[in-house]
Every structure is written in C-alpha cells, then in structure tokens.
C-alpha cells in the first residue's frame, strides 16, 4: 500500500521542454506509467524515449525501456485520449498556474507542480479556482511524489528510495532526499515520499499528508520535514496531538536563519516575529513528535519514535 501514487497512476506531462523531457525519461526508466504529454507547439508529434532501466525501480523488468509518448495541444485532449489520472507540470513559472487550472478543468485528479518561481498572486488565483473541484494539487516548487518501485513523479533521484513502512512529507527537496536515504540505509524504507514544496501558497499541506498516511495500512510511522516561515508545522502539530495514531518524527530547518531574509524558498522567511524554528520545534515536541536535532539524525529520530 501507499498513498497518492502507485502502479495504477497514469501520468501526463505538461511542458515537454528540456526539463520536462529529462525527467520524463528518468520516470520511464524507473517504471512510471507515463501516458502522454501536453506541449502545444509540438502537438500531433510523438516523443521517443529509450535507455537503460533504473533497476532501483520495479524488480524483474527488462534491462532497457522504449516508449513513444503522444504530444497533445491541451490537457483536455490528452486526458480524453490517454485516460490519464495524474499530471506533472514542468511549465515555466509565468504559465504554470494556468497549467494547474487547465489540468483541474480537464478533470485530472492529481496535479503535481514541480515549477519553481510562480508568482504568489497566480497561485492565489489557481487555489481559488481549485476550491470547488475534486482535485488534489501537490506543490508547486516541490520535488514531487514517489512510491518506491511503483511510481516516480518528479525530480527526485529514484535509486535512494526503497519500499518500506515510513511516510515522508517535506517542504524541502534535498532534505527529503537526506531523510529518504537514511530511511533506506536503516532498513525502514518508505511507503510514499511527498514533497509539498517551499512556496507560501501551495496545494497539499502537512495535515493533508498526515491524514493520508494515518489511514494507509502500510504506513507505520511518518517523518515530516519543515522549515521556517508560516504556521503549517504548528497546524500539523495540533492535528497530530488530536488525531494521529502513528509515531511521528520531524525536523525543522532554519534555527539560525536571520529574520526578514528569504532563505531560498519564497516561503522560508521569518516575518513579524512569526514562523521561527524554535516555535515550530516546541509545537511538535508538545504533540509528541521526536524532533531530530540535525538532519543527520532524522533516520535515528524515526527509529526512536517507532520505539
């Protein structure tokens, strides 16, 4: 079992430029069921992929893969032709929020937006548009979602993952890899790893992911990786204290970050005295979460939380 994505996920790519092509290729090598792409200027053509299989993906696969993905003008046409139920967005920032809305309008259930640098105002509008629709948005500005050996959607390196029992949810890309790798090395593995992204306005949040993992029978514990800025971690802590039935470990980045400075991610900023790491760590501790003192200790913190 897993959450959000598995072998039944049929993935469409929005934006088959250089970046989109590169990550489509690694997804195919991993064994993800990629079904087509949307790129208006290449509509009607077919994009060919082939190479050596990434054997950290599904076991027992052939050593090589080969795929021809049809390119469509719009998400609606693509969804109609391919029966895609998920979409991954690599569209450049000025057009990415529109791409999210287009995917939602076409009835795509799971939209994963990798694009970094989308204007906040565009995301405010896109979220307003999604409000009354039955869709889930993950991101933007995130590494994506992976269920080891089943489905990899996004830019994370596949080989560091291993099927297992821990749900991973994170605001930061490379810190997710750090956590995943430690969980692979200490044998716990992952059910699904979700990058929710580092922007101030995003789709799926910590609480959404905690709910999913709490209900997933295969997930035995969760590690959540937060950072300074906003109050999403505090809200998660409140939810954990009231509802979570599984052990949770955590880490918060930015203990030493100076106030008023944007630490790379648009959302990682301490403003008006709010969003400090110490507030977040205190809230998580109070909810019974084992918070790792450094990123190197994330795997150990998870073991400790599991008891």
């Amino acid at each position, binding site marked *: 079992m897993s959450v959000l994505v598995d072998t039944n996920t049929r993935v469409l790519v929005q934006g088959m430029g250089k970046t989109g092509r590169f990550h489509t290729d690694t997804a195919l090598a991993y064994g993800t069921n990629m079904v087509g792409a949307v790129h208006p200027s290449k509509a009607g053509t077919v994009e060919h992929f082939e190479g050596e299989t990434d054997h950290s993906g599904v076991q027992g696969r052939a050593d090589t893969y080969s795929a021809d993905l049809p390119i469509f003008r719009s998400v609606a046409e693509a969804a109609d032709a391919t029966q895609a139920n998920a979409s991954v967005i690599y569209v450049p920032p000025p057009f990415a929020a529109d791409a999210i809305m287009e995917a939602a309008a076409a009835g795509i259930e799971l939209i994963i937006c990798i694009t970094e640098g989308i204007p906040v105002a565009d995301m405010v509008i896109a979220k307003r548009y999604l409000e009354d629709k039955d869709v889930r948005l993950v991101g933007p500005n995130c590494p994506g979602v992976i269920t080891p050996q089943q489905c990899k959607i996004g830019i994370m390196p596949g080989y560091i993952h291993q099927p297992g029992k821990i749900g991973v949810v994170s605001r930061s890309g490379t810190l997710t890899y750090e956590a995943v790798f430690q969980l692979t090395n200490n044998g716990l593995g992952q059910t699904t790893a979700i990058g929710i992204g580092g922007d101030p306005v995003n789709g799926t949040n910590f609480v959404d992911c905690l709910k999913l993992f709490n209900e997933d029978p295969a997930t035995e514990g969760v590690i959540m990786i937060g950072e300074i800025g906003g109050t999403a971690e505090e809200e998660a802590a409140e939810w954990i204290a009231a509802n979570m039935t599984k052990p949770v470990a955590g880490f918060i980045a930015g*203990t030493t970050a100076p106030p008023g400075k944007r630490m790379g991610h648009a959302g990682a900023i301490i403003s008006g005295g709010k969003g400090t790491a110490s507030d977040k760590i205190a809230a998580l501790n109070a909810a019974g979460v084992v918070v790792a003192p450094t990123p190197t200790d994330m795997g150990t913190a998870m073991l400790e939380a599991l008891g």
Partner: protein
Amino acid sequence: MKIHEYQAKQLMKARGIAVPSGRVATTVAQAVAAVRPLIEDSGNPVVVVKSQIHAGGRGKGRFKEHPDLGGVTVVLAGIDGGVGAAEEAVKELAEKMIGSTLVTIQTGPEGKQVNRLYIEQGVDIETELYLSVVLDRALSRNVLMVSTEGGTEIEEVAEHTPEKILKATIDPAIGLANFQAADLAYGLGLEGTAFKNAVGFMKALTAAAAELDTDLLEINPLVVTKDGNVMALDGKMSFDSNAMFRHPHIAEMRDDSEEDPAELEASEHDLSFIKLDGTIGCMVNGAGLAMSTMDIIKYVGGEPANFLDVGGGATADKVTAAFKIITKDPAVKGIFVNIFGGIMKCDTIANGVVQAVKDVGLQVPLVVRLEGTNVELGKQIIDESGLNVVSASDMKDGAQKIVELTK
C-alpha cells in the same frame, strides 16, 4: 524586492491613492529647491525631510555623524520665518544628512548611508491609523489589515491588543468589496468625509497591491487630516520577486546601493546567497539543506558565514562563481561544501570545486561532503585533484571537521 518610500508614493499617486506632495533630492541644492513649490502648493508652511533607505524606524533612528539628528525631521521654521527660513533649515539638514550613516532598529549597528532625501509637505494630522495588505498563508489569500493604532509597530499591537486589528479577506476574483471597506472604515470610527475617503483609499490600495504584485504594502501611519482627507504619510512596498518579469518598470526601481554587493553578485549568477556574520562559508544544493547546513555548523559550535544555495541544476561554472563569492569574504576561515546530488550530479560539483580552487586558490581549509548521484565519480575527482580537501562521511561529520579545522 524593496523600493524607497518616494518610489512607493509615486506608484500610489499614479493609482489614485492620496499621498502628500513631495520631491526627491540627491543633492543639497535639490533639497532646498523643493521647499518653495511644496509650501506654495500646499499652503502649509511645514515641510518634512525624510531619509530614503530601505529600513524602518527612520524617525527614531539617529545619524552616526550627528547623534542628535533623526532620520525623519520636521521643519517648522517656515511657520514664523516663511519660505526663506524653511529653505535655510532644509539646507542645514540636507548638508548633514546626505552622505551620512543612519542607524535604526532595522539597519543593525553598522547603519546605512543616506544618498537620497524626500522633502514632503506638512500635513495637519487629526488621527493616525494603520493599514496593510499582506498574504495570509493559512487562507492563501491577501488580507487587508487596519488598526486605530497608527504610528506604532503592528507586531506590538498584535501581541498586546489584538482586538485593535481588523481584517478583511480579499477574494482574488472580486477584490475588496465595498461593504468590506465600509465595515473596516466604520470599525476605525470614521465618519462623514473621512469615512468616504477611507473606503475609496482602501479599495484603491488593495487594487494596487493586486496589480503590482506586492508581497507587502504597508501604510503606517495612514493619516486623517483635519479637513477629512485620508493620506498615506508613509508607504512601505515590497514586491514578489517571482513576478518582476511582468513589471519591468518596478524592477528598474531597484536601488543597488541598498543591496549587499556579494548578494548582488550572487543574484547575477542565479545563486541564492545571504551574507551572515560567522566564519564558515557554506556551499550547498537546495534551500532546506542550505539552511540546515547553517544550523548544523552552529550546532557543533561554529558560526556560518553565509547561506548559499547553488540550486538544482547547477553547472561547473555556477559552482565556480559560488566558490569565488564565498572566498571573497575576508571573515571566511573555512569552507564546507555539502551536496546531496539528485539532478545535480556529484561529479559536476567536484569539477566545479576543483576548477574554482585552481582559479582562485585556496587559503583556508575545505571540507567536502558528497552524497547521491555519481558520488563515487565525484569523490574520485576530488581525490585525484591533488587538492588539500578533507572528505566527510555525512553532514554532521563534515560540520564537525570544518569547525575543528578553523579553531
């Protein structure tokens, strides 16, 4: 991205938002020349001389060179002495202020050099209010916040008397509805002309925030004059840097002299860099990992000299540029390179580091921790380079080693 008060007021004025008249001056002569037209047009003999720097607390701030002089000073000489006396007083102030260093609670002890003054008409203030448009992250919407406690830090109001802050959530599809503005104006205790003007002000301001992609638009104080006008006496605007592609005229307003030179250089190479006060330079991929690299250095007893995220798709050239920026800082006593290669391959990083060391030399200890894609290849490149580089097995090990080496 931040702009100066005078620029914010130009943008507001162009959008029908009431601001006092004013003129910007970079020389004493310009400052003096501004006085007569301001007094004659407004009919008010008072003018205000305001230092233009990107930091708050200017009124209470003091100049290093003139410890009795505030960064914002009201000139009353015109009341009895007429325009000539006001001009004389402004001349004296401008001579002291331009080129001097203003220290406020937000500049840090080093202060900021004042290169521009804004000479503004005096306003007969009845009441001072607070108003801002900011993103509420929990709601994913902008909110308009108002308070009767103008002129004070809003964080203080929020902490001690939160009931004095009124809010309206702005629907991006509708903007601020008339009834919402009216509710807030009523809540501020306004009546008659002032009520009507406040409603118009709020609607124009929230529209401007949406049009200009501000991430903060703060008017503190917003003043009601004795004749019922509602005006922005101060204006702080900062913008969503991700949206600057659609506002080239605002991007041009950026004042490079307000930015840290190293941060400017980094942004030219598309690197995310923030200068800090410590001694250990960091080069990391990914914002979260870069932040926690700073944290772990502190955790093991060191002090980070910077935040530096080389990004996901860095090339060897970008790594070289990053390395040069770090080594330029004379405070740096050691460097810690911490990479978890995903898209970015460890051999790319290794090549960049080797190239950079060859280009600029290496005067301080260097610890490199590589993990992820092509890690063996990366380590091999470092090992075979003949450089004096210490390898680390994980992040904590690396942090401990660099702190030890710089003691």
